[in-house]
């Protein structure tokens, strides 16, 4: 007789499950399972504790600073936390951070999608591999190196581009240039674009690679050209992944410090033109002021750090909402 034949399952009991049954359902009855459960649960809790600790630290110190501030913290175009009375505000920093990051995304996202599609769908395998490898290398370059390159190579070479933009698009006001060194937000945006390109490309590449063969064949069988296959099945399937990738890139752009500090001439005013000095970024401002700052000055910088923290959370939340809203139509339920 075959003793491995499973017995008929017991009829479901109406009583609520005991602790023992709950444990069994989680797979936590054996010692190995219990240890692993404790480890993974502990890691999850640890992450939350760290997040909470950062938020509490930032909030406490920021509260000190903001309550000392004699001006409106959100609208003031000045940074003088040690003055009598202390006056400082983050308007300029928020403007510079957001604008430079938007420029970076506007440049990096299309280029990244292009590279990722080229590697996964156009390039012969012999070429795609090396390109992917070079992109991986770019991701590993420290930001200080990008900063050096930006300051020594990019800035002097952007004079031509700035002149061209001023000549042909100067009338928009956004691209007006008064002829100073090209160390304005546009330069920061371009440098940040190069820095976030690898991460957006890599994540997009993985997403595009995972598009099931059958979706691409569905489009092909309808008589779609290669570009139409990409438009009909690859891009829609990869949409949420590309958004996530862009948010990762944006996170890096918002928080980038050294490279920005090395190419930007910060000022504490806002300029409609992206080519003239105007604005700084949160991270750059903290990095350049932190060492010489007094106790009050540090608290003020921490308050600006808290705003950056909140902006990052908002950006990520928005991205989640965008992805969530189209979930029904995402590839996930295929």
């Amino acid at each position: 007789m075959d003793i491995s034949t499973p017995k008929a399952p017991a009829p479901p009991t109406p009583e609520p499950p005991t602790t023992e049954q709950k444990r069994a359902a989680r797979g936590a009855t054996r010692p190995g399972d219990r240890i692993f459960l404790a480890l993974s649960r502990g890691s999850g809790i640890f992450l939350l504790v760290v997040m909470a600790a950062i938020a509490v630290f930032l909030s406490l110190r920021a509260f000190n600073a903001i309550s000392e501030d004699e001006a409106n913290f959100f609208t003031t175009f000045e940074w003088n936390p040690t003055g009598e009375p202390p006056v400082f505000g983050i308007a300029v920093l928020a403007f510079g951070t957001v604008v430079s990051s938007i420029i970076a995304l506007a440049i990096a996202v299309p280029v990244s999608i292009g590279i990722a599609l080229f590697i996964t769908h156009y390039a012969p395998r012999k070429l795609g591999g090396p390109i992917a490898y070079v992109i991986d290398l770019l991701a590993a370059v420290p930001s200080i190196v990008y900063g050096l390159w930006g300051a020594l190579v990019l800035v002097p070479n952007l004079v031509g581009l700035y002149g061209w933009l001023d000549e042909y698009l100067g009338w928009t006001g956004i691209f007006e240039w008064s002829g100073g060194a090209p160390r304005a937000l546009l330069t920061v945006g371009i440098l940040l674009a190069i820095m976030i390109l690898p991460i957006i490309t890599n994540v997009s590449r993985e997403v595009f690679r995972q598009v099931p063969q059958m979706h691409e064949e569905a489009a092909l069988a309808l008589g779609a050209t290669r570009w139409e296959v990409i438009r009909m099945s690859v891009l829609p399937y990869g949409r949420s992944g590309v958004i996530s990738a862009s948010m990762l890139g944006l996170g890096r752009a918002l928080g980038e410090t050294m490279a920005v500090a090395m190419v930007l001439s910060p000022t504490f005013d806002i300029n409609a033109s992206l080519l003239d000095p105007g604005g700084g970024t949160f991270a750059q401002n903290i990095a350049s002021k932190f060492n010489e700052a007094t106790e009050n000055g540090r608290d003020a910088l921490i308050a600006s750090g808290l705003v950056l923290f909140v902006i990052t959370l908002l950006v990520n939340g928005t991205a989640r909402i965008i992805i969530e809203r189209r979930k029904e139509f995402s590839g996930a339920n295929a």
Partner: protein
Amino acid sequence: MAKRIDVSGLNAYYGSFLAVEDISMTVEPRSVTAFIGPSGCGKSTFLRTLNRMHEVTPGGRVEGKVLLDDENLYGAGIDPVAVRREVGMVFQRPNPFPTMSVYDNVAAGLRLNGKYKKAQLDEIVEKSLKGANLWNEVKDRLNKPGSGLSGGQQQRLCIARAIAVEPKVLLMDEPCSALDPISTLAIEDLIGELKERFTIVIVTHNMQQAARVSDRTAFFNLAAVGQPGKLIEIDDTERIFSNPSVQATEDYISGRFG
């Protein structure tokens, strides 16, 4: 508008591996031809050569001639994209575009082929969904995602999508193998209706299905693993299942191997 398929001396390769060797056959317009045979005998590969999908696979290569009426699909200057607009295909696993609604799935092929007015599109979508016996089930949820339908409905949606562009030939690669018996029956009934308008070629592992739906049956076999698949015989379905002319066919359909 259904067209005759005339294949002669067709070889299909994966890289240097010869997967299908020297196939010649004729498929009459407005008929159903079933391909049967053991796994790996090349029937799916051969099917995919009929709309030039085989060469999408890396290393895929085809020699020989496939005439659609008088036009050689592998002739010089023939665009594979144009071929696939003439020869539609339904796959083993239902593959509606997951990011598109039911309506957009059916309209997808039309939108590739040109500009249609909204009213025209509405009309063709309705006609195609009716043609695929799906209209009554989805008419109230045309804007819901196609991937939310049941497996059998998804497969009929794929058929609607394929017939919306009015192909000359419809290829089906084991269209029911992922479906339950009731959905299978629905598809088989549909095949019976579709053959009034299209030339249909269907690959199936289910011999009863071949016997039920097809007018002609082609039996494929391979001598051994690693050997190319070959067409053993093609004949009227009734003959293949009652009195085939080759012993191997009889052995296969009577369940002695495969």
